[in-house]
């Protein structure tokens, strides 16, 4: 299968600091790719560029054959079908779990289309199905701010399910989760993969080992290495800048 996402010579400069430098990155259709790297390596910046939150200083981003460089976030999400879960919980706090899910699918169309009293039946059923899949059926009426941390992360993943994008970007989906929750999340993500491409940014190596086949390592705004998980784990360069500190559970900062 061909590449669904391609970046060409992608660079972004924040007042003199090159957060990303000449990155040629590509993800195949239907692939689950994990991006790792020390803090400040440019992982989140790369996701910001793909989803339109940040405009690149130079370079191009292609998605499904379309040039999406510099398009607005809502256009990238609605028209091209890229969904994103942010680093850290980012929910509609004072709305119920069910409302959060409905909202994930509500705002895409025209304004007039939303004047209907309620969502089409199929959408409501879809929300019920998603609630079941993320294990929150019994908590549909609770406000997002009343849920536990792990449940909130799952609700975010549920919102992505409702959005049903072609490419799903998950920025640290297991941050702050217990080991058991992390494992469940891994299963959830592998189930999501059917018919989709997923890009995961993660720190937790145990989780990476659970889900990843191909891994990209970013370091100081460049791609340091890319390849099958086993090769990456034995790459001396990667071990030096990243994995060494990870396995010792030492503070996750860049380089020696």
């Amino acid at each position, binding site marked *: 299968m061909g590449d669904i996402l391609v970046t060409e010579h992608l660079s972004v400069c924040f007042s003199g600091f090159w957060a990303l430098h000449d990155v040629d990155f590509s993800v195949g259709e239907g692939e689950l790719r994990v991006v790792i790297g020390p803090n400040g390596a440019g992982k989140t910046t790369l996701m910001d560029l793909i989803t339109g939150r940040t405009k690149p200083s130079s370079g191009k981003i292609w998605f499904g054959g379309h040039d999406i460089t510099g398009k607005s976030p809502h256009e990238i999400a609605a*028209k091209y079908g890229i969904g994103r879960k942010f680093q850290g919980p*980012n929910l509609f706090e004072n709305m119920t779990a069910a*409302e959060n899910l409905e909202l994930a699918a509500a*705002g895409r169309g025209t*304004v007039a289309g939303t004047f209907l009293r309620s969502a089409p039946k199929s959408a409501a059923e879809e929300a019920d199905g998603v609630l079941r899949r993320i294990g929150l059926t019994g908590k549909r009426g609770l406000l997002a701010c009343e849920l536990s941390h792990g449940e909130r992360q799952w609700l975010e993943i549920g919102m992505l399910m409702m959005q049903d994008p072609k490419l799903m970007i998950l920025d640290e989906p297991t941050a702050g989760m217990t080991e058991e929750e992390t494992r469940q999340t891994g299963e959830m993500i592998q189930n999501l993969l059917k018919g989709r491409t997923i890009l995961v940014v993660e720190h937790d190596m145990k989780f990476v080992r659970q889900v990843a086949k191909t891994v990209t390592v970013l370091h100081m705004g460049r791609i340091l290495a890319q390849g099958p998980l086993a090769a990456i784990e034995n790459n001396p360069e990667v071990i030096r800048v990243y994995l060494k500190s990870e396995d010792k559970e030492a503070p996750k900062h860049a380089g020696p």
Partner: protein
Amino acid sequence: MKKLLRLPVNRYVDYGLFLVLALFPLSGSLFYTQLIEKYLVFLIFAYSLDILWGYAGLMNLGHAVLFGLGGYVMALSLSARGGIPDFMANGGVTQMPGWLQVLSNPAAAVLAGILLPALLAGLLGRFLFYSRVGGVFFAVITLALAQVFNLFIQSQQTYTGGFNGIGGLPGLSLFGNELTLTQGYYFVFCVVVLAYVFCRCLMGSRFGLVLRGIRENETRLEFLGCDQARFKTAVFAVSGALAGLAGVLYAPVNGMIAPNDVGMEFSTAVIVWLAIGGRGNLTGAAVGAMLVNVLGNALSENFGVFWQLLLGAVIVAVVFFVPDGIVGALIRAARGRKAGKAVESRG
């Protein structure tokens, strides 16, 4: 019956308030019926701000501009029924301008009084929201707009009556028949109920859901594929139309309109009603509008010059002790009890 029992607590307040308002003319006091009729108009105005500020989180500090635009259009129309109005004649106008001839048709005036504010709001939204002006900046720009509009009205004495406003207006009439006070009251009451039903339906739709999403977390919504500027512009226009409708009713009900009704002072007043009553549930807007006005009236009757000071103290106390307003606190309390029950039954 079961459905009625499951209603959120604030809906009982809505229906209770409407019941009281529907029965009020039976009290027999013409003076108070006339006063409450004016406050009924304010309810529509309060609803119009609630869908904008309460639901979508857009604080409009110049909301009275939209109200005033509708009000002045209607006032001009009413004053032109018997030929060139006095204030225009005094300004040297000898022939009825073409636009005023059009406006002297009641249907045209009602339509213009609703559509012009909607258009103004829509245009403002088009420029502000698409250039990503939001939050405090939106509030400040609308505040400036209120001041500009007020000055504009005062300076165009020939066409707006200037500082004195436009007075001596005839009361409400329907298809050429002037209504009695009680008839007028029930006519306004019906419009209020219609406005309420309209807002309930609109805010209960997915449109309302998206608006609340914008208020809660605009950025997240954008990454879910929502063009938030379009929704904000739409709700601003709808809110403008409702505010305009309130203005259209206000001119005949109050018998006059003046620059005070369109500027910062009245814009602040409606903000205060919502702050006291609570936002984002429609009930708070109605409760706040009624409470502040009735209380203000009672205080001014009993305490003379001190009434504004006392009202100010009440306002500060409410905002300080119940920041989400009286109805907001009520909903929170009811919700807390329900959640407590759920926990008990689970444990």
